[in-house]
């Protein structure tokens, strides 16, 4: 039961983290803060995928054949975590990295052209003053 509670806390906290990241993306004052929130969101989703592939057995081991013997396969099948989410997350991290750097370049270009990265000033609401 304790392990179930721990697992449940982990998953709900990841959900909470996703909500916080979405809040940051929507209400972030500058484009840079929105980008930081986006990276938090993608990292949380990646972590969530990793936990989908996890299994609660003792010991739970990474999907690597440390001994090149056919008998080790049975042990790995009983104790190894799922390798597929790890491989997909690896691909997801690279694509996320590419998207993030693209957005960072766009933010720098926005600063060059508009001399600001404040989202409200960019959409023409510069009269509203908000204290930090």
């Amino acid at each position, binding site marked *: *039961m304790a*392990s*179930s*509670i721990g*697992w*449940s*806390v982990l*998953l*709900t*906290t990841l959900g*909470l983290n996703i909500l916080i990241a979405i809040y940051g993306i929507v209400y972030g004052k500058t484009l840079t803060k929105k980008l930081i929130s986006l990276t938090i969101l993608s990292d949380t989703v990646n972590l969530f995928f990793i936990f989908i*592939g*996890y*299994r*609660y*057995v003792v010991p739970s081991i*990474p*999907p*690597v*054949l*440390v001994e*090149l013997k*056919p008998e080790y*396969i049975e042990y*790995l*099948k009983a104790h*190894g*975590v*799922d*390798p*597929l989410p*790890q*491989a997909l997350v*690896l*691909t997801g*991290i*690279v*694509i996320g*990295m*590419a*998207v993030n*750097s*693209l957005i*960072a*370049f*766009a933010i*720098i*270009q926005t*600063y*060059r052209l508009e*001399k600001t990265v404040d989202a409200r000033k960019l959409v023409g609401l510069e009269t509203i003053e908000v204290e930090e």
Partner: protein
Amino acid sequence: MNRRTTFLLIILTLDLAIAIALAFTGLVTTPVDIKQLGLFYIENSFFGEMSAMTPEVVSSIVWDYRGLDTIYETAVFFLAIVAGLAVFGTVETSSGVSKGLTNLAKTATKLMSLLIISVSASIALHGHLTPGGGFQGGSALAVTPLLLIPTFSVYELVNRGVTTTRLIAARGLALASIGLIALLPVFRGLEIATNTRFYPAYFMGQLISGSLFFYNIFEYLAVASGFAAIFLYISIPERCLDGEISRGGG
């Protein structure tokens, strides 16, 4: 206690309450089994009938079973860097002069860089045997330019010939090599990105897992040069930013 802390505490308490409720109602239980597809990869990665000849199951998926995904993913990253070139390509880089940090810091950075290069190379070259691989090794190697830029200054790097154009060219070459490794089996009448039916699994008694070893090497170089190019782009001071920095903003 101000309002923000109270709000945060309420949210955390709610989160904990939902978690405990989910656990007690049995809606969330710890998983003890993995999916059949995961078991297939574990069974086949080295000994099975559809073997990729690699003991590292994640690497076998990334570069063999779902290898085409990875090739496209590498292409996506390349396009992002090309977009950076489009935005920053016109910035002049060699106009400034900067001394960098002290000699002590420079010597320490040189030593650290050597260590990082060797560790990252071992992560990349053992990618088919242990957790790691081309992307991870390349990301580790990309820490070197991150260290060199503040220590020696970006102008020093550019004056020594480490320019974004050359890094992009290096990345292009590495990507072309990955494409060539994937394409070579086609000339022997095999499918594109064929692994152990074309490339040898062992070389001089060492397990190299066919094409995985070559993919890891070239991905290592491609990712490292790509990241280095991005770091150089972002470190180059521009006239429009200089004014902002001198005013103390940013």
